């Protein structure tokens, strides 16, 4: 505990490393990109894996499937994958909120199915316009979340039990409304178009460029004002690297999806980003904003990290719990509608199958902890892409569906193990 080099915290030399662990010269920036990399390695070793398991999983799955089937790595299948991942990503995004509090929602999948059923019914039987129907569906989801949240927060029933009960009970809704063996058409031009139509090529390019430029401007501006005010900041090279990486991904995917991917390109033209992608991206941006930039988001993390501390700090823990379940079920409704849009119909079994396991797996493999306190909206999207790759690839390989169940179960278990192990390492190393 050397207490040398006092003086007010004015400006720290950039190279104050770990050795000079002195608050007055606290390290506001990892001096170089090399240091930043070392920091990252240390975090990994300490069990803070972030999205790394997801990225590794994506690489493994892509390698295996592209070797096993030559159609896997085509732009046609890529677009397919994006559409299939849409509803999983959205469901997982909702689950992140519940998982953040260390709770679970087993009913999210069937809540989505029930909401989609009602959306389809009001359009078919009552001729409501699509947006009113969607609002009704999401409203049903919100209502379900409200009841679940109230039961968990007010009565103190474990969320596992409450949502298991809802998982069973909510399956009755589509079964009653549709009748066993039947199904409802989901062929509204706009809603079905989310999955089967594409953003015009030019508009896609414009949107991609706007996103890249917007991200670059925002991060650079933030970096500059942090430097100017002498606050903690990352090295500029790392900021630039992140911008470059994001640009490469966004522009690269846009380029791929804007190609004509029709089987017979001479006759048909299928090109552009599927409409579901902008929906997912908009939700991602919105929830990321809520989680990282608002008091609500901060309080959500606080409750997940230490509910007692949050309570003493004056945060209404019960209200936060209810809000998390409302968001989860509301997002489940959106996810159910996207799933219906993809299949073009709603059937009594909608949402009762693998959906929930996929979504929990997606959130967890993306880096959200089952123990609460850790998770981002981005995790759900990255993890959702990984998880969606499994049925996509297995489908191409014409595998029996029991393989699909086995693989999905294994992936979920693997993700949970990674989470548990990294949690143990975190508490051991204290990162």
């Amino acid at each position, binding site marked *: 505990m050397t207490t040398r080099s006092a003086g007010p915290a004015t400006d720290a030399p950039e190279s104050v490393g770990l050795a000079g662990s002195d608050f007055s010269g606290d390290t506001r920036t990892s001096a170089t990109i090399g240091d930043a990399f070392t920091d990252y390695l240390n975090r990994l070793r300490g069990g803070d894996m972030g999205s790394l398991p997801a990225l590794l999983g994506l690489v493994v799955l892509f390698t295996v499937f592209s070797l096993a089937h030559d159609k896997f790595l085509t732009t046609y299948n890529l677009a397919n994958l994006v559409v299939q991942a849409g509803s999983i990503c959205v469901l997982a995004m909702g689950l992140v909120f519940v998982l953040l509090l260390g709770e679970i929602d087993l009913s999210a999948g069937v809540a989505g199915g029930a909401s989609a059923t009602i959306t389809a019914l009001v359009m078919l039987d009552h001729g409501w316009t699509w947006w009113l129907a969607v609002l009704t569906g999401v409203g049903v989801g919100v209502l379900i979340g409200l009841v679940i949240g109230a039961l968990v927060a007010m009565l103190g029933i474990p969320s596992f039990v409450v949502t298991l009960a809802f998982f069973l009970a909510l399956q009755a809704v589509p079964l009653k409304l549709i009748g066993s063996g039947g199904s409802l058409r989901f062929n509204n031009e706009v809603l079905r178009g989310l999955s089967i139509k594409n953003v015009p090529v030019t508009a896609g390019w414009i949107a991609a460029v706007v996103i890249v430029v917007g991200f670059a401007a925002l991060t650079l501006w933030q970096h500059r004002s*942090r430097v100017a005010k002498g606050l903690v900041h990352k090295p500029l090279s790392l900021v630039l690297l992140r911008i470059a990486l994001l640009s490469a991904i966004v522009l690269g995917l846009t380029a791929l999806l804007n190609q004509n991917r029709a089987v017979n390109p001479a006759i048909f033209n299928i090109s552009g980003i599927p409409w579901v992608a902008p929906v997912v991206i908009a939700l991602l941006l919105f929830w990321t904003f809520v989680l990282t930039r608002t008091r609500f988001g901060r309080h959500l993390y606080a409750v997940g990290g230490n509910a*007692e501390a949050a309570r003493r*700090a004056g945060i209404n823990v019960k209200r936060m719990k209810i809000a998390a379940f409302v968001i989860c079920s509301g997002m489940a409704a959106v996810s159910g509608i996207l799933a219906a849009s993809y299949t073009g119909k709603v059937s009594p079994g909608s949402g009762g199958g693998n959906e929930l396991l996929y979504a929990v797996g997606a959130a967890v493999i993306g880096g959200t902890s089952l123990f609460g306190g850790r998770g981002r909206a981005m995790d759900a999207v990255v993890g959702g892409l990984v998880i969606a790759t499994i049925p996509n690839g297995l489908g191409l390989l014409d595998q029996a569906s029991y393989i699909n169940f086995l693989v999905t179960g294994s992936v979920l278990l693997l993700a949970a193990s990674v989470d548990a192990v990294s949690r143990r390492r975190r508490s051991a190393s204290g*990162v």
Partner: protein
Amino acid sequence: MTSTPETGTEWPTADSPSPEPLLQLRGINKSFGVVHVLHDVDFAVYPGQVTALVGDNGAGKSTLAKVIAGIYGRDSGDYLFEGHPVHVSGPRDVAALGVEVVYQDLALCDNLDIVQNMFLGRELHKGVLLDDMTMEDRARETLASLSVRTVKSVRQSVASLSGGQRQTVAIAKAVLWNSRVVLLDEPTAALGVAQTRQVLDLVRRLADRGLGVVLISHNMNDVFEVADRITALYLGRVAADVPTEQVTHKQVVELITAGRSGDLGIRDVAAATI
């Protein structure tokens, strides 16, 4: 150690450098059902001084602390702040007076960083947006003003901090809001030697800044090192309220265990135990 007034607890005020207490409790009684926990307890906190509150398990330290914190109401007695009686009916009233309590379990969120913890529940915001930059600035200012030199970055997560550093963050959180009185419940109980040193230094600095500090502790070494006054509780009564330099280690231990030491302490210990 010359005078022994009737109660055995009063000392000539000439000895205390600052006559006007910042926070004062007079004649506090508190019962839980038939158990009478606090008997006519007088307790005072002076600005710029560390007042140690000592006593055996069950002596009423925690109950008194919770009365001060506003968590427990009192059956009778006055709560005075800067010499004026104040109405205290809950923790919020106490916080509004500028009295902050740092509990033994610290109440920090491991998944949040230092800045986020220090502002937890009282985040600064511009509209719907969190004002993270100002918060970081103010957190750093507060830590620097406490001469905290052991934290690598204010943006590191609290989970990565040592016990002493966590205690430091909890204390900094308490003084962030221009508080006048800080009550620390066993701040060194779980700490090693070096970390105890850090925290005691910090406690001393708080008092040197003019705050009234209450230190609840079992550890006599800590008490004798930083406290200006010692208030010893014995079975819910004040056994002694003395300046530290006027008592010895041994005397305080006797006050804690027997309620009496020589001519110090409760006159009729046998009566008090009934």
